[in-house]
């Protein structure tokens, strides 16, 4: 249908025609086969692999297998976990546990990002900031968030606040360190370029330093999201009321063994979802950035 002759258009830089249009029936078959190979095969392999693992687990649990030091007699089978999930999904407890954990993550992680990003930019940009603000950070950084739990319980009025604080501590340092690194490794020539184009101090920050260190900041956020979950679940197990970590530990003390595994799976899925959300925000905020690719 497309006109064969090239229009003598004023757009010499645009590449020629609209590409190969139709194509014959044989081509379509080959293409279908190509799609099958590219998409269906890997999906099928993944599904089979996961199914085999599930079946193996089911068999080990059902038969109460024991290998001396490693015993499966108390490990619930996946079928039992599925039943437990159906129960939990119906009860209002589910929303309450997940909702509580999510709120703590949002509060703790959000506060950490809100504080760590500007702080990291100041430390990365100004010598004075580095001299004055970095030392206390360096002292606190090696202390794992979990080690803060006893002190946090003493420091804060409510368990809720102390758990948010633990989540905050877990997320804070990865974000801070990545932000500092992002600012420091920013190509100096880009700042110079903005100065020769008339940028003032504020514009240098907003137009160059922030976007330029964004890839590093997003990396820090996704690492921080992982450590935030890790810290939160531990805190909930020790001092929590509600929350998915609390649910998992409570299941152990109440000897609801299928619920333990269910809690673990939910923790994994929620963590994965949060990391995916960060990655998605990163891609959305940086359409120009292709990790490991031709970004500059």
């Amino acid at each position, binding site marked *: 249908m497309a006109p064969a002759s090239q229009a003598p258009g004023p757009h010499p830089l645009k590449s020629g025609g609209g590409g190969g249009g139709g194509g014959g029936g044989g081509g379509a078959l080959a293409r279908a086969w190509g799609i099958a190979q590219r998409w269906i095969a890997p999906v099928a392999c993944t599904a089979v692999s996961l199914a085999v693992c599930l079946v193996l687990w089911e068999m080990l649990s059902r038969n109460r297998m024991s290998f001396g030091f490693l015993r499966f007699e108390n490990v619930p089978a996946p079928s039992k976990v599925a039943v437990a999930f159906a129960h939990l999904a119906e009860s209002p407890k589910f929303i309450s546990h997940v909702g509580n954990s999510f709120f703590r993550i949002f509060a703790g992680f959000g506060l950490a990002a809100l504080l760590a990003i500007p702080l990291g930019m100041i430390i990365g940009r100004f010598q004075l900031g580095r001299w004055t603000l970095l030392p206390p950070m360096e002292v606190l950084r090696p202390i794992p968030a979990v080690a803060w739990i006893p002190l946090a319980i003493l420091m804060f009025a409510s368990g809720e606040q102390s758990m948010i604080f633990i989540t905050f501590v877990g997320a804070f340092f990865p974000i801070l360190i990545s932000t500092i690194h992002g600012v420091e490794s920013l190509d100096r020539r880009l700042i110079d370029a903005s100065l020769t184009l*008339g940028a003032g101090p504020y514009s240098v920050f907003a137009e160059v330093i922030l976007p330029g260190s964004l890839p590093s900041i997003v990396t820090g956020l996704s690492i921080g999201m992982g450590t935030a979950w890790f810290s939160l679940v531990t805190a909930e197990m020790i001092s929590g009321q509600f929350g998915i970590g609390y649910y998992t530990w409570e299941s152990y003390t109440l000897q609801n063994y299928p619920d333990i595994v269910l809690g673990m799976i939910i923790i994994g899925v929620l963590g994965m979802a949060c990391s995916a959300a960060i990655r998605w925000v990163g891609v959305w905020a940086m359409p120009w950035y292709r990790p490991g690719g031709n970004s500059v």
Partner: protein
Amino acid sequence: MSTSAPASATHGFAPNLAAAHGAIAEPRIVAPSLGYITGPGAAATAGSPSVSDDSSADAPPLSGSVEFREVGIRFGSGAAAVQAVRGINLSIRAGEFVSILGPSGCGKSTLIGALAGFTAPSEGSLFVDGQRVTRPGSDRGVVFQYHNLFPWKTVAGNVEFGLKMRGVGRPERQAVTAEILQRVGLAEFARHYPAQLSGGMQQRVSLARVLVNRPRLLLMDEPFSALDAQCRLLMQELLLELWREFRTTVVFVTHDIDEAIFLADRVILVSPRPGRITGELPVTLPRPRTAEAVTTAEFLSLKRTCFGHLRG
């Protein structure tokens, strides 16, 4: 590239109506409407106050004279100190196109850095339009060998940056940007990111980004050395056209003798480190110049003189 007649030296900012009519076949001329936005003297008033305009508002359109007085630049201190250039005396007329030619490490980039305001002279002083250079400003645009476009901004975003910094409103910015992109042949790439362009296209964006500011001084540090021969030639011709339209002073650093002669009104020869000016060569080739100029006897004789100079 366009071979249409140059705007005569005396009406650099006059609207070029012919260009508007010929827009489809030969998109060109951006100067008129840029002039409308920024005006001839605007670069000085709106740009950095570091080299402020001392002349009156209806001064002649040409500004951008340069004066090096006994300039020496040293890096580091003590035993590790490196004297990059020494005793540089050089006057450049407003609107002149000067090439600086010298071996690697002789301090060419150092001189560009000093003019841009990144490096302060250790000795002597440096003036642009009679004002001492103290810091970077948008009245002096720089284009480097390897582009320093903002990777997170589109081509249009990069080009309009200077106008944005100056507080020009969005519609105006977009109009001016579209026009100059058209002028450098990149209208269709406005929404692309720098990483999606070829080296030659990136340099054209760099040039456009600097020119929207109407700099009185265009500083170019081996801008075309990373390009292939054919692309370089097109870029050189484009640069000469833009120089004519924008009436700016150009200081062009290169180590390519042909390029230095082809472009410039005057070639400044710099010795190995510590760099000093060992001679200068006025280039009398007629303008406008096209690629054929390099085959003329006059060009070859200039080149021979240049070689002689460089051998000592």
